[in-house]
């Protein structure tokens, strides 16, 4: 039974991550476009429905899945095949310890954890697994039997190992504050008070962690391993079709995982600023009503805004009706919700398990919102900052971030000792 539940949770989380990936790719392309003052992808359509270019991601998936899988003759075949698998595997397995919400307690049942495994060594597990990510890159670089790939692999190995050190040291301050490595403890310790979140208590650690995370995920401004202008494409230069896609997905999965960790460690995890979990549980009816009303209003307003964009004969084909496809149902659902609220609003009362489930749903929602914000942050940074030079990158890692992280530990420990 336990194993079944764990397997289900695992599958669910994997499903969520896999499905956020195309969304992020779309966000990346659109974000890049708007930062560069252009429209971005907006042509692919299904019966005129373009979803603001989201269909492009779907197209990419289909293309990559059905493209011919080329394994060049000069590569080391077993490792060449293994490398992308490792990359993807490592990127997603970290999600196992991320808590999405408080354990749900229903009656006298055992608490239902909103995470796959609540490990005593949670944060260390995260580091242990993320330190394995370098294998995918290194083995890909080595197996490709190509100078560019080899250099890319070497660079990334050096970079990831160096930045892991400051990454690990930066969060020691958080261990000291929480007195535990368990991620749920760290979240609980931060609580609902915004100013007790670690972003305010450990700002130095946050910036070090953030920079190290960029280096770990091989994203700009630290994407030296795959810098197009110097290394063609770095370690995955020989890869194509789905194997390439696995690397690509791993990168985005890494971003998602990284955002989850940032949200958990520094931004209170599932906590809502200034609204404590107890309060929500006590006033579950009120919260439900507010949410119900809010959702209804949002649908009506959003739907009608979409409908206003409907202009006849702009393109002269099906695409003209696209706003209506979403606008009309939106408005209708909104009115439906509001009407139901007017009729039954006062008669609704939650069953016994209601408050807990509602709380869990809200917490998951808040957590996902935080995660999506940081995912967007990654993309924002990518299209804003220029790339570092390699020696600058190493110098930054060893000569600035490492001493800073150590100083942060010293100060935190001193403060903890005084208190």
């Amino acid at each position, binding site marked *: 039974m336990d194993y079944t539940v764990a397997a289900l949770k695992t599958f669910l989380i994997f499903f969520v991550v896999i499905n956020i990936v195309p969304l992020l790719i779309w966000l990346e392309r659109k974000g890049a476009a708007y930062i560069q003052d252009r429209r971005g992808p907006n042509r692919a359509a299904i019966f005129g429905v373009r979803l603001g270019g989201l269909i492009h991601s779907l197209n990419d998936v289909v293309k990559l899945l059905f493209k011919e899988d080329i394994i060049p003759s000069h590569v080391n075949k*077993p*490792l060449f095949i*293994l490398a992308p698998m490792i990359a993807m595997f490592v990127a997603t397995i970290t999600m196992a310890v991320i808590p999405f919400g408080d354990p749900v307690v229903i009656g006298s049942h055992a608490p239902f954890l909103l995470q796959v495994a609540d*490990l*005593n*060594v949670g944060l*260390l*597990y995260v*580091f*242990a*697994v993320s*330190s*394995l990510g*370098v*294998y995918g890159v*290194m*083995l890909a*670089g*080595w197996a490709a039997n190509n100078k560019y790939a*080899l250099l890319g*692999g*070497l660079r990334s*190995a*050096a970079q990831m*190992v160096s930045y*892991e050190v400051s990454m690990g040291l930066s969060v020691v301050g958080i261990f000291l504050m929480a007195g*535990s*490595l368990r991620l749920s403890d760290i979240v609980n310790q931060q609580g609902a008070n915004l100013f007790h979140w670690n972003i305010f208590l450990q700002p130095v650690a946050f910036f070090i962690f953030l920079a190290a995370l960029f280096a770990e995920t091989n994203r700009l401004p630290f994407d030296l391993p795959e810098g197009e202008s110097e290394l063609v494409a770095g370690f995955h230069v020989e890869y194509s079709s789905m194997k390439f896609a696995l690397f690509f997905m791993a990168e985005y999965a890494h971003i998602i995982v990284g955002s989850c960790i940032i949200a958990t460690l520094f931004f209170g995890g599932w906590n809502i600023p200034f609204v404590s979990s107890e309060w929500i549980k006590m006033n579950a009816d009120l919260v439900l009503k507010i949410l119900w009303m809010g959702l209804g209003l949002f649908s009506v307003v959003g739907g009608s805004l979409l409908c206003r964009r409907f202009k006849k004969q702009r393109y002269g084909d099906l695409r003209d009706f696209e706003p209506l496809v979403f606008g009309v149902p939106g408005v209708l659902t909104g009115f439906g919700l509001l009407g139901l609220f007017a009729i039954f609003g006062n008669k609704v009362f939650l069953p016994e398990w209601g408050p807990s489930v509602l709380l869990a749903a809200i917490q998951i929602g808040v957590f996902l919102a935080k995660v999506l914000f940081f995912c967007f942050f990654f993309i924002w940074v990518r299209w804003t900052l220029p790339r570092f030079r390699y020696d600058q990158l190493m110098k930054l890692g060893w000569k600035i971030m490492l001493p800073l992280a150590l100083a942060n530990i010293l100060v935190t420990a001193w403060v903890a000792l005084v208190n």
Partner: protein
Amino acid sequence: MESIIFYAFGGLAVVTALLMVTRQNPIFSAVWLVVCFFAFAVLFLMLNAQFIAVLQILLYAGAIMVLFIFVIMLLNVREEELKPKVLQFSGILGGGAAIYLIILFALGVLKEKVASFPILPADFGYVAPVGKLLFTKYLIPFELTSVLLLVAIVGSVVMGKRKL
């Protein structure tokens, strides 16, 4: 359940260790050794050593073996420079010695009375008790490890840096 996990991962460790020793190309040896260390980590978990199990992955798989593969890549020895395996005198000698040692040790160990594991407190091997011990009773050995690491840093810089 316990014995299934033990035999599965114990067997995995032995098989991967043998593969590590017999591969001609060091990079395959390294990859097999990483798998072997994972099997070790699972066995450590079975022995109520959560903290150490994670450290095993973090340090061995995440740091030491990465360093190995890094060096293999850095030296970049091509396939054709690798020597074919030949069974030499030292091979026979080593094989004999290893089998002899295994028999000796195993016999020695098995002669003891059957020793099953006792029940332990729930937090045995968690971070807090291990850490507490490390910073109270074993503080001085712990500080010695920092000296050791410093020596290793100085040493590897002396050996590795192109220009001092």
